[in-house]
Structures are given as structure tokens and as C-alpha cells.
């Protein structure tokens, strides 16, 4: 673990929040990632909007770094692995495939999100198993949408949560009474400023540091992409 990480305890489990926009469950060597939106830039290009490449490669590189430094044996995507059908480019899958082949032992699971339903599952050769939400991983329930569940504490994504602190918009983790929301992993995804309630614990990512916010500034709503 590194200096910027923050270890917290929730329903008796120890979780480490990582500034690379990921969460690590060390006793299970499991890494959680929400909303990578791979192929989003390619989707834009396919529709005549010039977005440079690099965001997907950056995401893969960051993922690779995370798997190396946590020595995770399992990687779970909490939905929206792929952005859209139009973004299923050959280059993107080739890059993901190269990375997958260099980490052959890591077990990978996608809990499908709203984008995945339209974009389709990743190709079989990537070796990522896919399942519909919610998915039990006791004591947690894995979902894409942050909704409470009777069977356990929910880990979710979808929202791309952000907070405004000292004038900056920062991605964050939100741990509520029954549901936790992870920040969006993808670089080209944007933030949605969230409303928090008093029982929420909010952890902002300030550059290379995860910091618990004790006094989140009054939220302000904002429209952004999901």
C-alpha cells in the first residue's frame, strides 16, 4: 500500500480506497473498479466528434499498475466496462487483450451496467466473465446502480460521484448506510456533483491522496454524463 491510500472499515470488513479511483479488499485480494467506459472516445470519433485517443490506454495502464501494486488475484468491474457498441474498436480490444495476456492468472468479473447492456459483453478471448446485477459476494452485494439490497451491503458505481472542496471538483467515494458508490475509473467520464446526507462518509481523491471529508461544502447540482 502507498501513502495516498486510505484504509477504512465497513460492516466489519477492511477496505482500502486507492487514489487511482479503485478500491481494494485485501483479505480477498480483490480489486473493485466502477465505470471504466472503455471505448468512449472511439464512440465519439465514430460519430464525427474528434476526441484524441489515449484515454483508454491510460486506463489500461492505470489498471495494470493497480493489479501489480495490490497483487490482486481478482478484479471486479461494477458495470459500464464498455461505453457503446460504436466504441468496440479493434484497437481498443487489442490493447485490452495485450494487457489481459500479461495478467493471465487474475480472475475477472463484470457485473453488467446500463451501458454494457447496449454495448454488449467483452469478447470471450478476454476471459472476463459477465453476470447481471445484483451479484452476491458475501457480505457484499455487487450492483451497478446504487440501490439498497436486503442481502447485504451494496457496492455500486453508475453515478460518477464528485464533490466540490476548496474550490476544486474532485472525484470521490461515498459510503452510505447501506450502499457505497465508487468513483468512475475512466478518465474521459466526467463528474456528477452529489448531494450527501449526514450519515454518508465521503472520501475525496485529491491528486495522489484519498482524504476523508469531514465537512463537505454544500453540494451544487450539475449536469453531466453517465
Amino acid at each position: 500500500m502507498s501513502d495516498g491510500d486510505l484504509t477504512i472499515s465497513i460492516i466489519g470488513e477492511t477496505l482500502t480506497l486507492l487514489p487511482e479511483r479503485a478500491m481494494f479488499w485485501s483479505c480477498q485480494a480483490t480489486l473493485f473498479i466502477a465505470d471504466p467506459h472503455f471505448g468512449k472516445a472511439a464512440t465519439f470519433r465514430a460519430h464525427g466528434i474528434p476526441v484524441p485517443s489515449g484515454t483508454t490506454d491510460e486506463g489500461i495502464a492505470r489498471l495494470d499498475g493497480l493489479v501489480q501494486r495490490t497483487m490482486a488475484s481478482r478484479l471486479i468491474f461494477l458495470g459500464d466496462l464498455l461505453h457503446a457498441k460504436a466504441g468496440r474498436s479493434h484497437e481498443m480490444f487489442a490493447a485490452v487483450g495485450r494487457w489481459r495476456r500479461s495478467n493471465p492468472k487474475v480472475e475477472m468479473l463484470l457485473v453488467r451496467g446500463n451501458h454494457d447492456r447496449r454495448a454488449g459483453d467483452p469478447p470471450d478471448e478476454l476471459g472476463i466473465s459477465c453476470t447481471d446485477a445484483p451479484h452476491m459476494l458475501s457480505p457484499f452485494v455487487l450492483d451497478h446502480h446504487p440501490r439498497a439490497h436486503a442481502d447485504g451491503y451494496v457496492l455500486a458505481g453508475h453515478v460518477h460521484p464528485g464533490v466540490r472542496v476548496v474550490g476544486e471538483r474532485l472525484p470521490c467515494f461515498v459510503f452510505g448506510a447501506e450502499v457505497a458508490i465508487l468513483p468512475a475509473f475512466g478518465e474521459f467520464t466526467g463528474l456528477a456533483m452529489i448531494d450527501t446526507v449526514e450519515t454518508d462518509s465521503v472520501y475525496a481523491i485529491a491528486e495522489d491522496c484519498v482524504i476523508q471529508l469531514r465537512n463537505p461544502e454544500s453540494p451544487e447540482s450539475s449536469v453531466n454524463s453517465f
Partner: protein
Amino acid sequence: MTAIRNPAERWFESRGWSAFSFQREVWDAYAAGESGLIHAATGTGKTYAAWWAPLLEYIAERSTESVATEATARTARAARKASLPLRVLWITPLRALAGDTAGALLQPVSDLGLPWSVETRTGDTSPAERSRQSRKLPTALVTTPESLSLLLSRADASDQFNDLRLVVADEWHELMGTKRGVQAQLCLARLRAICPNLRTWGLSATIGNLEDARRALLGRSAKRSRIVQGVEPKKIVIDSLIPPVIERFPWAGHLGTEMVPQVVEAIGEGETSIVFTNTRSQTEIWYQAILAHRPDWAGTIALHHGSLDRKQREWVEEGLRTAKLRCVVATSSLDLGVDFSPVDRVLQIGSPKGIARLTQRAGRSGHRPGAPSRVTCVPTHTLELIEVAAARDGMASGSIESRIPVTRPLDVLAQHIVTIAVGEGFVPSELLDEVRDTDGYADLPDDEWEWTLQFISNGGDALKGYPEYSKVEVTESGRWKVQDRAIAHRHRMSIGTIVSDAHVVVQYLRGPRLGSVEESFISRLTQGDRFVFAGTPLEFVRVRDMVAWVRRAPNTKGAIPRWMGSRLPLSGELAAALRNRLGEAERGVYRDAEMQALRPILEVQRKWSHIPGPSEFLIERVKTREGHHLFFFPFEGRLVHEGLAALFAYRISRIKPITFSMSSNDYGFELLSPDEAPLDEAIAAGLLDPSNLVDDISASLNATEMARRQFREIARVAGLVFPGFPRSGKSARQLQASSGLFFDVFQRYDSSNMLLGQAHREVLERQLERTRLGLTLQRISEAALVVTNPKRTPPLAFPMLADRTRERLSSEKLADRIRRMQDALERAAG
């Protein structure tokens, strides 16, 4: 003068008018094939100066032709069918003005029974009318720059404009300093290329840089054109409502609506009044306040601003014209346009901001012969009285603001090129020649042109080798065209350069639309919340498909929406006049009612600190519970102060790690820090040094943040981000990303993207007014430096202290700042 009166003069005579010599000058110049620019105050006959020129041309043509049959059509439809093809394009900046303008143009046409049709085409034109116009355009078309661009995106544009003789750019001073003006320049160059004999005439209010206005209008062809001056403006009287009690402290002097009784009294003195405010929210607030003071005026007072539904605005304008309304509270939405002759009283709430603007507003009154135009200023803050006195000086000395044209915006260029590619397509070398014919792109370097072409075709360098990307394609014949129908459709939907937040229509559950407010305002409401809009208390019910459904609420308590929009800074001319007035006060001279009223406040300023004269630069150091404040007073307008604040904060932060929060107003700016800033050291190290200005500003963190915000407009204009269109559905949703996200991604993966450079340039030139900033720094570096250490915050500084919208600049690590902020909050909570 010619003895034979022409048809125009006869028509003028029939209405009891006589033609002015400047109008005759325009008619003759036009007949000789010339283009030009006419400048005069509103309501002095500019419209007919331009309009009669092509009418006279037609009448002359007809009399020389052997066949002079007049079409005597029995129905309107037949008359339209028989009317001549398009001859005159009339570009207006406000679509709200289009109808009135068309009405004025139609008068002589119908009086003389000419076979001309006159119609409008704007965003408000109905689909039925549009499709009729796409079969055949009228003889004269009144339109906006956006609708003109749309006409140019048609595949048969050249045929449509075949017989075009004249294009008029109305209210050109409003357009010339904006990206819309550049868009208009590109359209004009296109029209000149299609019809080589086209004449262009601009109509403008008098501004400080008429030569620039002419060049922006005519581009290369400006050499063969003339500037025609209209009739001299009326005499203008400026006075103020002086608050009955002037508190010695301006924070107590924040007047809000305390001036309402005096305003109501002033309205009562006139027959018909316009009360101008500086923002739409202020309009709502003052309308409510006046109504609360005089409930018996309900039904005879109204409000008018750009977010109200068109029907309501038209009703209000009609009420002003027919003197049915006693008073209208308005924003700049009533600055322009046709005359409201009954108006005999104009009030200005809050700072006048500029001399030209106050002149324009004053000119809305006093149409009776011999009566001067009069404007009465109402301070919302006692210090604003200095600005009124200064505006009077500026008007007396004839210093009128300039409008600085925008140069070489690549986002507008990219949009225009795609517009042409959607329509007839283009050959790059020909189009480049046409683009360089404009003033805005006369110096367009080859590499910027090449980059823009790449940006719209293969996406530029960073996208090379992406076969999935294509927008504009090169056809076999060598023409560049948009082939994909979805791309063409999306482009047509997003033509234009006006960028605003997503808007939500406000509508009664079972009733009419009231207008629109920003989505961000509505998103904060929950069912049952009250708010005030269009002068009416409303209860929010729900929002669905970009419509906020409301019902009437019983009382007037509730939030007032705020609209984003640029807050105008004090103009350079007005700022200079203001510094002179302070200089007089410093010498103990208080010449008129406004300055005498302010005397107690300025004397406190003198006692606690200092009144800065025009050749002095005042810095105040104050310590409060909030921290250490530095107040700087260049008196140069808010935009310049924002730039200087970032610059000074950056320069001081290089001496030691420190976090500043900054606030600026029209008089000065404040740097607030938790620890004392090393001011003396910074001054010794060249805090006020005018050299390295641009480098230092660009290096400060805020320049990047500002560029990121500026990118919002650029991303929208260049076609990266789309406004929400109706029924866009899921497939459009997957193409949504904020402009900030684009900015970050470009910055990281395509840093040579020229739109990024444009964002930085726009921040420097337009947001921070680089030229003015440089001149200001030069001025204050040569001024006598006065540093005071008042025990309490003196009057001039206080408004900045109260400002809660702050920018931040820091040379500390982000995580450290957050920890420090949290520790401070916990200490405060005890």
C-alpha cells in the same frame, strides 16, 4: 441638390417628413455601387436610408424596361408568388426585432404597390413558413446571423442568392465585437463570392472605433466604401435619485430596493417609463418591489427580459408603443429596436457600466420634438453615485467606448467550414480565399487553416490512423462535403455561437408558457417549492422532458432564478472619468449632487486610509478574523482586476507557499490569505513590473482553470458538444461529455490542438482584456504607490470583503489545502 424629387422624397413628404441629406448620400452612393457604414443614434432614420436605396434602384430599373406591368395579384399567396426573387437580406442581431423591422420595411412597399415580398426568418419562424421559403425566398428577408448560416447550409445556396443586391447589417455595433459578428463576417464573404456586385451597408450606433467597424463589416472591400454620419444626437440629461439618508459606511449603504419609494415617485411623474436594470434577476426583483409598493398599478406595469416567452415580450412591446403601460422593468432586451415613442422617462437601476450604454438607454426617451433625452440613475450602492457623475463627464467630453472585433476564432471557422460542407461543399483553395476576404481572418496563417481543415476532416494530428473518424469527406470531384446525414443534421441543429446553459421551459400545468430558466436552477427545486418568474409567484410541480410544470402560488415569497451571463465590467472610458472624480475628491472638490452626497463616505475613506488620485495607486492592508487582506485599487473594471488578482497572487506565491482567495469588483481586487503575504518583499521583487505579464498570467494556475471554462463556448461552437435537442433519445446521450472533459483530454493527449491555444488566447484577450491589462500595469507601475494599514476595512474596500464569489490560487499541495480548511472549520466550531 437635384430639383427633381425622387420617389423616396415624395414618400417621405406624404408622411409629413423630409429626407435628411445623409439619407440622400446613401442612396447616391448605393446607386454608384458603393458599400458603407451609417452611424447615428437610434430612431434617426438609418433604416430608411438603407432601405430606400434598393427600392429606388428597382424603380429606376422598372422605368427603363419596356415592359412595366405591375402584377395585380388578387390573393396574398398569388402576390407572394408573383413577387421578385431575393434582392435584399437584412441581418438583425435580435430575432425579437425582426418582426418590427419587417413591418417598417413593408410600409413604403405597400404604399407604392411594389411587387416585393418582405418576410422574416429566425428561430421563431414556423415550419410551414420555412418550407414555403425553401421553395422561394421573399424579395427582402429579415434574418439573424444564425438563420443566414442555415440558409448557406443548403445545397442550392448559390441559386437562391443569385439576384441579391444588398445586404444590410443592422445594429452592427452589437454584432461586431462578438463571435456572432465573426460568423456574420464569414457569411458576408460567402455572399460577396456568390454575387460579385453585392453591396453591403452596416447600420451602427456611434462608437469609438468606426473604422474597425467598417473593416469588420466589409473586409478587403472596405477600401472602396464610405462612412456616412447620420443626424446629430439629441441632448442628454443625466441625473440621479439621491438616497435620502447617506450612511457613512457603504456596507450599510447597500441599497437594494430601499430606493423603491423614490423610483415609484419618479415613475409617477412620467406618462410612460422604462426602468432598466443590469440583470434579468434584478428585473424580477424590481418588478415585484414596485408592485408591492403600488398594488394599484397591477396591470399597468410589466417586465421584459430575454428569458420571457416571446408572446409575453411582444405584448409588453405593444403596450409600450400604444402607451397602455405606465412602466416596464427591462434588461438590455429593450436597449435596441424600434422606437417606443410614448416613453418619456427612463430610469437606470445600478451602475451604468459604460457611457455608450447609458446614452443608448437615455435615447429611449424624449421623442417629442424639442424634448431632451433624460435618464435618471438609481444607485443600488451609494458608491455608484461616483459612476453617475463620471458618466456625465464622459458624455460631455464625447468619450464613447469602442467595440473590439474578435480575430481568428478557429471554433467559428470550423463551424462555418462544416456549414458550407453540409451545403454546396467547397474546394479548399477557393474557400481560403473567401475566408481571408474577411477582416477577422485576413491574417489567417496557413498552418491554422490547415489545422482547421484537418480538425473537421480527419480530426487533426492526434487522430491520424483512426479509420472510424470522419466528418467532412473529400469527394471524387475534389469537393469537400459532409456525406453522413446524421452529422449534417446534428450540425444544422447546433449552428450558432450563442452558448448558454441548458434551458428548461416554464409552463403552467394547463396554460401557456412563461419563458425559460436555466436547468441548474430548476434542478435545485423540489415539488411544492415556490419561485418568482415572469413577475408571477409560482409553485414548482415537476419537470418532464425539459419542461418545468408550474402552477400559480398564492404569495410572493420565493427564490428568484438567476441566469448566467457575463456581468459587464466598467468601461475604460468610464473608469478613467471615475478616477478623475476621485482625484477631485482627494483635493476636496465635490462638484455636483452625486459627489456631495458621497462626501461623508469619501471623508471616512480619507480619514481611515486615503483617497487615491488619478496618478496614485492605493494598496490597503487589513487584518480581520477571516485573515490577512490586501486590497488593491486600480479602478479599471472587473475583468482587468481578475487578471491582475491572478497575476499578483501568482507573483507573491512564488516568494513563499501560500493560498489566496481572490475577489474583484469594478474598483479593485482583494487577496485574502490565512497568513500575512510578503507584500513589501513582493513589491521589491517586481510585483508591479509590466514585463513578463503574459507569461506570468499563463503560468498561474487560474489561467488554466479560466481557459477550461472558456473552452465551454469553444467546444460548443466547434461542434464537440451539442445542445440538448428535443427528442434526442438514448443514442445522443452516449455522445454527451462536458466541455471541461474535452479540455482535459485534449490537454493531455492532443496538446497541439489549436482550440486549446484559442481558449488561452480568449482568456487573455477577452476575459482579462490583455491590452487594457498591460496598459493598467504600466499605469500603476508608474503611479505613486500609497500603502496604508487601516485598523478597520475602509469604505472603498468593503464591498469586496462582502463578495462571496471567490477565485482561489495556491502554491500549496491540494491535500494540504483540504486538511488546512478542515482544521480551520473544526477550530471555528470549537
